[in-house]
């Protein structure tokens, strides 16, 4: 039966191309990762980087000076990993938010997550108020407050059935409320505290150490598995709600579940890095252009692309005014924006969203 084998083989080829693109992304991440670690006041070669990392697990295999070893493993690698994890998480959350809200404008920040984090950070920095202490005085507070919008939307949707459009509006309203709150406390604050807060808000991959990366990585790995497991339901929800329901998807429950997981991812990322915008909005779109909207592939690919994208931005932020370093949050939008416009102008025919 040549007929039916044909369309399936075509589809297999189509899938094969997606797998190839994902492989390219992974290669890109290892390459960029190596390059990123070489940058800084102390110069290393690309092979040195991977030798030092290898040495950490098998000490003494390569001959690397102890100082270099320490700089690479304790300072440079955590920064690189932070950029990778943050990019991965934000892009993953963005893909999910766009899918469940059926809205190309959705991003990890749509539901007011970042505004919540900003307010939490503001309370800690400006007013000295935090629900967490010690090392996590600011981070913990930002994390807790960034989850509030998700809870509010969650409870509202329990009481009243909410369409995706209303959920977006509720999120935007919460963002305004939190921003106003942040402005209010800023108005009564000292200039130096304000500077500290706005620096935090700009988003930076260089604030983390190995001990922060553990929890972040655990959240991201668990969340990724949960989300990738939902990709079949997400594919069905690409159609309008009635169709999705008729195919057996519990649309409301899936929407709430994914919203909760995405908010958790976003909160975990930005409490360590500050607000890194744009990646979560645009990485899913660019990946969709390259790989299509099939979530089984889009979800991991978009995460990987986001990781590569944010790491590239971080490399530029370290290089552009060397030896000073720009906050990466500035670079993502400043460079990503024009890149995105270029793609919009160059793309032909097909509507990608």
């Amino acid at each position, binding site marked *: 039966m040549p*007929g039916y084998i044909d369309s399936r083989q075509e*589809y297999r080829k189509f899938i094969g191309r997606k797998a190839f693109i994902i492989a390219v992304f992974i290669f890109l991440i290892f390459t960029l990762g190596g390059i990123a670690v070489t940058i800084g006041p102390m110069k290393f070669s690309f092979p040195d980087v991977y030798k030092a990392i290898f040495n950490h697990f098998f000490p003494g295999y390569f001959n690397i000076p102890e100082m270099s070893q320490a700089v690479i493993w304790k300072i440079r690698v955590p920064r690189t990993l932070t950029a990778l994890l943050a990019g991965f998480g934000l892009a993953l959350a963005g893909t999910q938010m766009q899918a469940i809200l059926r809205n*190309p404008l959705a991003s990890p920040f749509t539901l007011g997550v970042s505004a919540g984090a900003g307010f939490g950070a503001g309370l800690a920095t400006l007013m000295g108020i935090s629900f967490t202490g010690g090392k996590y005085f600011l981070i913990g507070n930002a994390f807790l407050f960034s989850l509030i919008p998700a809870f509010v939307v969650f409870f509202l949707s329990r009481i009243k059935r909410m369409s995706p459009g209303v959920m977006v509006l509720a999120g935007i309203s919460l963002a305004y409320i939190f921003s106003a709150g942040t402005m209010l406390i800023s108005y009564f604050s000292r200039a130096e505290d304000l500077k500290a807060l706005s620096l935090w808000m700009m988003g930076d991959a260089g604030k983390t150490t190995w001990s922060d990366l553990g929890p972040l990585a655990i959240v991201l790995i668990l969340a990724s598995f949960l989300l990738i497991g939902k990709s079949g339901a997400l594919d069905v929800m690409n159609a*309008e709600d009635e*169709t999705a329901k008729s195919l*057996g998807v519990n649309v409301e429950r899936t929407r709430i579940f994914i919203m909760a997981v995405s908010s958790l991812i976003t909160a975990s990322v930005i409490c360590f890095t500050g607000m890194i915008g744009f990646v979560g909005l645009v990485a899913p779109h660019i990946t969709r252009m390259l790989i299509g909207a099939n979530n089984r592939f889009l979800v991991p690919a978009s995460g990987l692309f986001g990781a590569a994208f944010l790491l590239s931005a971080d490399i530029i932020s370290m290089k552009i005014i060397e030896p000073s370093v720009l906050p990466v949050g500035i670079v993502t939008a400043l460079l990503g924006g024009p890149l995105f416009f270029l793609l919009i102008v160059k793309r032909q025919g097909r509507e990608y969203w």
Partner: protein
Amino acid sequence: MVTLRINDIEFSYPSVSVLKGISMEIMPGEIVAIIGKNGAGKSTLIKCMNRILEPGKGKVFLGEKELKRMKGKDIAKSMAYLSQKASYVFPVTVFDVVLSGRYPHLARNSGQRDEVRAAEVLKMMELENLAMRYFNEISGGQQQQVLIARALAQEASILLLDEPTSDLDIKHQLEVMETVRKLVRDREIASVITIHDLNLASRYADRIVMLKNGLIFAAGDAASVLSARNIAEAYGVQVSINKVEGRPHIIPVCPLRS
């Protein structure tokens, strides 16, 4: 093959009551057309049939089971629904659309067997050359055919179609109806179709249910339901009726003053 039984269902939106007590039965191997003017409750009724909407009162039975107590995926294994305005926000291929029909049968992600199934359906429907095209880029008539293919991949024994012909030219209208008739005849599938075109209903339906103000106004074969008097009552339109191939052929004349 299962029978769908609807027992005195009522449905209201917050400010309007749409269905006011409707009972009917859908048997395997028949095409039932639901007609009535805009707002009569056609789409609401079809959505209550597979729990997209839950009726406020009354019960729906799929075979022996009450719909309310069934899992969404189990309902989807028996009933497929084609919405009035099918749209995919993000571009997907026709193959992916058809493959999504496998969702109720999957524990996790779709596998090789599901792809084979999707490919078989595409071949059977002679849609293979569309497989790698994007759903949003094919014509409305092709889209309807693809959605029917999705329903077949779903292996549903009841096909609920909400105005499948509304946006189509006359050729595609006929093609869609022919496809449905063929499936119903060949596979003992049942089909419920809401439709505005009375002549298509007359020609293809085994049974016609005419709604008026949320109630069944008339039900039966085309000749008995599509009388000038019924149409005047339900639609407020004066018509003249001829017979074509033994079935009523309706020519609208003018709207009646209410």
